[in-house]
């Protein structure tokens, strides 16, 4: 039967040519888009390593000199670090607050980031030249606020509390610095005399839903380190992250801030608003998510074109072959079989694109057009994306043929023969 159909396809190569060319382009384009979307979606749903629900960032600023209530330099008795610490205490006391922490360019989805050269002591000796890694400066409660656990699933905050200048490194960093060993208890240096203890190793944390986990480390701010950091970077630049006991809407949070009133101002430092971190996530991910949606709409456009193309081509085909179909009906071919002929003919046309698609796929691997960084290339990935592509387009073809096929086989033998 297939041979017979191939003959028919070949005999009609003039009209089949256009639809075949379209299918070949479409299969390549759809496969490429599906592969992209698959990698994006797979990455998106991998665990993040932290929990930002019900966490809000309180935005801080300093009073301007012209504002009423401004405390001039000479009248101040405390420094900015003390002011920030006091503000933290005021907020912590509110019954609806569960926990809070301060970070510098290190809150999830914040725009800034800092990097620092760091070296293991007694670790991988190939890392002799200092390499820069992302550093997150955070107070010990950061791990409680964002529910970050260590590699064994235990909470981190108790492990770092009371330790002098502790560092927490990520699981990826442990693999880079101390391959095959436990990093906890080992020491690192920033290239100066001083050595810092690795107090805990946290499970993988990703910076956003579309990235894979990278090696990085937390430097915990406590005691003199905290003061030094606040004074050098300014209390107003601190990211004050607050986990609430329950889910609050933005108006509810604004109401809560209104109730807190004066306690949100300490000398010249004040809270000007609060934003849920989920909102910041929305902004950070928007560009990528928009791109995905545009790609999906392109795919819908392409598939609709396939549908139109198939309906058009097969409709005209069945019309010009009414004679042949009529003859078959008159000679007793049953209608389901005739329909099946048409369907299989369409699918054969699609199947013929396979060598071209494979050629296209091999080329995209060769020219490194596929994302192998976030998800390694594997047989499974190709089976899945090829399968998805052919199922989708095959579905479109069957839908496209069904209409002409129904019309053609509804003919009465006498009428059909009339065309012969």
């Amino acid at each position, binding site marked *: 039967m297939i041979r017979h159909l191939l003959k028919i396809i070949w005999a009609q190569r003039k009209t089949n040519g*256009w639809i075949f060319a379209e299918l070949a382009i479409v299969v390549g384009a759809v496969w490429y888009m599906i592969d992209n979307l698959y990698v994006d979606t797979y990455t998106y749903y991998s665990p993040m390593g932290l929990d930002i629900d019900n966490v809000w960032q309180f935005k801080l600023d300093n009073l*301007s000199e012209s*504002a*009423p209530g401004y405390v001039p330099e000479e009248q101040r008795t405390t420094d900015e670090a003390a002011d920030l610490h006091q503000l933290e205490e005021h907020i912590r006391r509110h019954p609806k607050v569960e926990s809070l922490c301060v970070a510098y360019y290190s809150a999830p989805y914040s725009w800034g980031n800092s990097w620092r050269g760091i070296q293991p002591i007694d670790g991988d000796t190939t890392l002799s030249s200092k390499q820069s890694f992302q550093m997150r400066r955070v107070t010990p409660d950061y791990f409680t606020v964002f529910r970050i656990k260590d590699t064994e699933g235990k909470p981190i905050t108790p492990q770092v509390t009371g330790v002098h200048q502790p560092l927490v490194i990520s699981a990826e960093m442990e693999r880079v610095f101390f391959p095959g060993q436990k990093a906890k208890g080992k020491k690192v240096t920033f290239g100066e005399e001083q050595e810092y203890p690795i107090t805990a190793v946290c499970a993988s944390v990703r910076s956003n839903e579309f990235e894979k986990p990278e090696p990085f480390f937390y430097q915990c701010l406590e005691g003199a380190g905290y003061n030094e950091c606040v004074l050098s970077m300014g209390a107003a630049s601190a990211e004050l992250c607050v986990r609430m006991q329950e889910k609050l809407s933005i108006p509810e949070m604004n109401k809560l801030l209104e109730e807190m009133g004066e306690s949100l101002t300490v000398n010249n430092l004040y809270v000007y608003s609060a934003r849920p971190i989920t909102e910041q996530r929305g902004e950070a991910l928007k560009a990528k998510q928009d791109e995905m949606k545009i790609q999906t709409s392109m795919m819908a456009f392409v598939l609709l074109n396939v549908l139109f193309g198939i309906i*058009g081509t097969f*409709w005209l085909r069945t019309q010009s072959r009414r004679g042949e179909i009529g003859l078959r009906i008159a000679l007793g071919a049953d209608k389901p079989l005739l329909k099946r002929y048409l369907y299989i003919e369409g699918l054969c046309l699609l199947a013929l694109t396979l060598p071209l698609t494979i050629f296209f796929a091999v080329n995209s691997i060769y020219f490194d057009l596929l994302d192998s960084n976030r998800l390694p290339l594997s047989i499974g990935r190709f089976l899945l994306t090829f399968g998805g592509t052919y199922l989708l387009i095959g579905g479109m073809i069957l839908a496209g043929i069904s209409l002409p096929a129904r019309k053609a086989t509804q003919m009465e033998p006498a009428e059909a023969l009339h065309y012969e």
Partner: protein
Amino acid sequence: MWKQYFKQAIQSIRENPLVSTISIAGTALAIAMIMVVVLLFQIKNANYEPETKRDRMLYVQGTRVSSISGNSHNNGSMSSEVVKECFYNLKTPEAVTASHTRDRSVSLPDKRLYNRYTIRYTDPGFWNVFEFRFLNGYPFSQEDFTSGLCKAVVTERFAREIFGTKEALGKTFVVDFIPYTITGIVRPVSLAARDAYGDIWVPYTSNTTLTKPLPILGNMAGPFTVSILAKNKRDFDIIKEELKKRTEMYNAGKKDYNVNFMENPITKFDIAIGSTGFQKKSVKSYLISTGSLLLFLLLLPALNLTGVVQSSVQKRREEIGTRKAFGANQGQLVRQILYENLILTLIGALFGLLLSFAFLFIFKSFLLNKETSLTWDMLFKPELFATALLFTILLNFFSAGIPAWRIARQSIVESLNGQEK
């Protein structure tokens, strides 16, 4: 003649409604997708309220402060001192404005509130560069600016949300503990007009943290970006030259740092094709990326349509053969098929254009931004219809060209015989 083509086209729709519907739908879809791309560009580039003079404007949206010793530089925006020394004294432009926006919570004098609004700190030149429609009151003046008075222009929507009425002239609100008095109320601005956008506009001299000299980077880095309105597009080069001289003079008085504006000033067209003040994008690279997208959107449906046109032309080969036998030449026949098909394509394109507006509104959240408001004067431009027509003719040519050429080339005998070749 056109009447005849039109009759033929209507006849072919009647004869084969399904195929005609499909080819009209295919055309509509292709034109809709293309016009969405065109509309998005137009929103970035065209003149509309309050940015009504974009074609005469230059933008400075990036500033580099470099140490004279040459081993460090800082990319960002500029300080009020740079604005004053390099831009306010430019002679060629019609107007110059500097501004800085922040999202801040706005309170009432007797009550702290935490709803956030976009506040734009700017200068009196702003009201000359951009064209706002005042519903009430007037902008702040040069005197207000010089003395750092806390006057504000707000949108009608802001007034309604904060005071419950749009009659808010003379009322007071508080930002960062500083009380502002409303002197003017304007219509809300679309987020698409990103250089003029805001909920509140105040003189930047009203907040000393923006103008206070900073001890770092030679007091050159700060929060401001600049928009320049030229009297005429032809002045662009003269303005760039004058700015260069001003900058050199300013730098000459500085010991440790120099300021420069990299690729700036750039035009709205540069920005629309993806340039920034730090990196200019060439028209060529834009045409390659966007052009190939448009070509894809055009050629894929054209493949479909070619198949359909091919079949319908084949059916009429006896007719065409007869016409040939009576002396019609190839050119006439090709034209006939192209024109007849153009009528179908035009019907499709009309639907497509309507569909593109629908797409833009429905998918606004990811094509632009959920909060961006769309107005008629940013969408309906004569250029838009010209572009739509151009793409329609192209699509028609791509889809009907080959079948028309083929049938016209067939010999009379073959055509009359009805042989498929």
